[in-house]
């Protein structure tokens, strides 16, 4: 019993220390996307927290969506989510991916990611600051 618990603890530790993110722009304005990319650069350097930006959905743990989900991206978004191996989490980055933001009510969008996928952490702000994205990943680690 103790051994099993220990293994579980180790796995939990590993997951916390190595969150690989996949970025998908589901119709956002670029603002959050460039803030997300700037996380990788010397200013923030999230690799020191073990965060890597992966390019294939099969390698990723966390899906970071930026954008209110346009009708055209919806099916692709669901497919990417399904391609990700479990356990997986979703972060909605930016106001428009939380609620639709300024675009709420437009004819071509679903107001927010949570109308399409289960969301674990919401990041408000338009665009969300890079510090807020790091904070969201830290918050998500508590959930793991």
């Amino acid at each position, binding site marked *: 019993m103790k051994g099993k618990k220990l293994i579980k603890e180790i796995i939990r530790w590993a997951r916390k220390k*190595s969150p690989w993110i996949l970025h998908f722009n589901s119709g956002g304005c670029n603002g959050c996307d460039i803030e997300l990319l700037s996380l990788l650069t010397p200013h923030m*350097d999230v690799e020191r927290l*073990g965060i890597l930006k992966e390019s*294939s959905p*099969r390698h990723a*743990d966390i899906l970071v969506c930026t954008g209110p989900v346009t009708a055209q991206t919806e099916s692709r978004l669901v497919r990417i989510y399904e391609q990700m191996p479990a*356990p997986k989490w979703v972060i909605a980055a930016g106001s428009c991916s939380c609620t639709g933001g300024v675009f709420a009510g437009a004819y071509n969008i679903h107001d927010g990611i949570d109308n399409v996928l289960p969301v674990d952490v919401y990041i408000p702000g338009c665009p969300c600051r890079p510090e807020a994205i790091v904070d969201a990943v830290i918050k998500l680690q508590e959930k793991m």
Partner: protein
Amino acid sequence: MIMREFALYIFHLAFFPGFIFLVASGMFFHWIDRKLLARFEGRVGPPWYQPLADIIKLFAKEDILPIGTNQLFALLLPLTSFASTLSAGFHILGTLTGTVSSFNGDFIMLIFLISLPSLLFFLGGWTTSGVYSILGGNRSLLQYFSYEVLFIMAISGTAIASGSWSLAGIFNAQSGSMPYITLQIAGFILSIAGLIGKLKRSPYDIPKAKSEMVMGPLTEYSGGKLALWKLADFLQTLSGIALIVYCYFGGLWLPHTAIGYVIFILLMLTIQFILSIISAVFTRLRIDQLIDLNWRILIPLSLIHNLLIMIL
């Protein structure tokens, strides 16, 4: 007595210089690489336990493959490449520590074991039948012939000079006189170039070029299989570097002494440093540029180099 010998045998195989030690040092070198790259880029870089956390996490993840993939094959390929690099590393470090005795021809065996993952890498792409995987696999095969020939040509200069095809023979030939790095500096540089190709590092990272091929053949792998591929990659780096140190720096360190091991590790770190700095300063080559470079310049150079060694 027999029991003790058997226990020692298991210890060597499983702990030192076997499985645990090799995997740990493979991870360590991977971390060094990432840390160095991060420092060159003006970043802090990951903490020391990063590769360990990555691998454990990947093993704990769900393992899914696209429909139509041969499950057994998809498991065997990364497993085989892991095993082959593991045995290569075990042989080199075993010879170093004296747990494995070097035999004539093991040099050839090592080269084969180290390059096996590159071939399997290509097959790994084909089995998972993703567009990027197949294209990445094709690219890795295209690239295979250009760097493999280069690597074998360049590094066999040491074997030719020593007149022996065993690791110990190459080593012993150097300990009496100068290490080969002094006479065969050109060969050393060429084999580093070949090694970069083998490890698919920048500027030879064409098969897994992130910006166009996503992750090349590894695109569709997930969970434990991806972890095995990564481990194979770590160990390939480790054993490739160790082989080069063994072949070119023979007289610079004393085997079976503490100071000798320290020098050996320092030399390995130096080569890792060279690999990292090359990754940092070069763009990825295009496939035609790569083949041009290798077949027009580097391989003829290595041929001339070997001819000169034979004449001398």
